[in-house]
């Protein structure tokens, strides 16, 4: 199976968009090598602006550019693209409903060795509460490209959340539609709903569970906002339990988004796998995934508990 850096795909997609449309402008805050916006800089140096280590200025400038008919991509690590500039994003970008696409890399616990101050685990929460903002968490390289293109094609502010590490490409996905979850495997009794790096883990859990005679439904919920209400209600009607998996705090992310819909529309028990209200720490990404209970075996175990 193919393994890609979603950020490599992001850099290439920016170049692709930049060739088609000279309104595309890219901003970065001293991390262009890591976020791969450097690919765009190489091709279109006059449409690339590096703000140095100054994320607030970058985000507010993005608002000004977008108000002047530019499609602006602003990138840095997820930790600095969110809370560090949250007021600028809320008041300058989202309040004015401007065409700024915040594409952040190095999200989640899989940032690894850099440790807790660099592991953005609250970013979805911050942005979910802001009107006009849309949020996509792609599960692999090819989906990262589709997410970036969707953000480009749809007017208004977007947050696209990418990771640092290479991720396996998931085969046999259905067509990517913004705002629509993708049922990867149709099963029964329990539905596992995940996003980002947790989708491949959920498919791993499926294999473990099959051996025990459990056949869950697996959903890739790449768009967190707007959340696919219809799909959630349909799934809740067909399954006894739902298990939500995310590489994010259990407060305010996908688990919250799913629960908020189902508590009103079709209450079922919704369980969760995520970071349990704690900060991360240094370690190899895979070690951290194990330590914080995010891998396939933990998902499988939790699914079994849910059905007991």
């Amino acid at each position: 199976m193919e393994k890609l850096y979603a950020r490599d795909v992001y850099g290439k997609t920016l170049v692709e968009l930049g060739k088609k449309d000279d309104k595309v402008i890219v901003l970065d805050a001293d991390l262009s090598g890591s976020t791969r916006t450097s690919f765009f800089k190489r091709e279109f140096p006059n449409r690339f602006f590096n703000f140095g280590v100054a994320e607030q200025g970058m985000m507010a400038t993005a608002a000004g550019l977008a108000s002047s008919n530019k499609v602006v991509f602003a990138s840095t690590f997820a930790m600095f693209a969110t809370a560090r500039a949250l007021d600028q994003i809320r008041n300058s970008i989202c309040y004015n409903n401007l065409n700024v696409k915040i594409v952040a890399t190095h999200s989640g616990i899989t940032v690894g060795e850099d440790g807790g101050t660099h592991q953005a685990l609250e970013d979805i929460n911050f942005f979910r509460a802001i009107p006009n903002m849309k949020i996509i968490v792609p599960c692999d390289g090819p989906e990262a490209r589709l997410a970036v293109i969707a953000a480009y094609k749809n007017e208004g502010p977007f947050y696209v959340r990418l990771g640092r590490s290479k991720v396996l490409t998931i085969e046999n996905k259905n067509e990517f539609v913004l705002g629509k979850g993708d049922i990867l495997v149709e099963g029964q009794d329990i539905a596992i709903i995940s996003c980002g790096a947790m989708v491949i883990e959920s498919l791993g859990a499926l294999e473990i569970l099959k051996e025990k005679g459990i056949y869950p439904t697996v959903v890739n919920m790449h768009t967190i906002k707007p959340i696919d209400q219809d799909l959630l209600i349909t799934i809740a009607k067909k399954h006894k339990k739902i298990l939500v998996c995310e590489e994010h705090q259990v407060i305010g992310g996908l688990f919250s988004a799913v629960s908020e819909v189902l508590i009103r529309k079709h209450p079922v028990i919704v369980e969760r796998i995520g970071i349990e209200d704690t900060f991360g720490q240094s370690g190899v990404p895979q070690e951290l995934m194990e330590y914080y209970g995010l891998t396939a075996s933990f998902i499988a175990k939790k699914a079994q508990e849910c059905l007991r």
Partner: protein
Amino acid sequence: MKNKIDVLVSTANEIRKLIIKMLAEAKSGHPGGSLSSTEIITCLYFEVMKNDPKNVDWENRDKFHLSKGHCCPALYAALSLKGYFPQEELMNLRKLGSFLQGHPDRKTPGVEVGSGSLGQGLSIALGMSLAAKLDNKNQRVYCLMGDGEVQEGNVWEAAMAAAQFKADNLCGILDNNGFQIDGRIEEVMGLEPLVDKWKAFGWNVIECDGHNIKQLLHSFEEAKKIKFKPSIIIAKTVKGKGVSFMEHVVDFHGRAPSEDERAIALNELEKNKI
């Protein structure tokens, strides 16, 4: 026939009267900084900027961003006098459903980008000026800031970036009235030496009397001539200018005039008629 300067002085006086009327009607808002920035906004809208209220989205218009968004009464009054919307609308300031929000909003004809959270406007204006340069437009972007506002870190991020990107089509104006909500700037959080700070950040700095139309117009002309660096006009102003009991009174930063105060203020301004 009145000369250009006299007309602008008279327009500024009209704007002051509208500020008092709309704030008294709204019963809340910010007179102090609106009155201190009146001549600056008057010069921009009635002389300096290329703009056309009949064609709000005119591609080559100059742009204005009110970073000190709380002083929008001065902007709204100027926009209505200029013809962007009917003057009666001013009495809807801060009312439910009005396009004249308590802080600037894109709903208002003539407002490019909303503002209100201090410190972000210079970056927004920089974005507009970079876009103009990319599009090879002969367009200037003006950004009005308060002096209390420049305590915000984002202002200095913008200052750094504008110099780095040689945004010579960007002109900042600092309404230097010396007060912020909690008191005198130098007592709350000192900013001096302001001129040196902006120079150190790579800006062309012009100082003037922010209530002297002639000096302001000259300063805007000077700024236009400077190439490869952004300009800032540090305009010395008086908070509450034009209304005797509001001048230098910090209480009127964010308190609307009562009915009695409205009458006294309008009476004073009426006497200024040329």
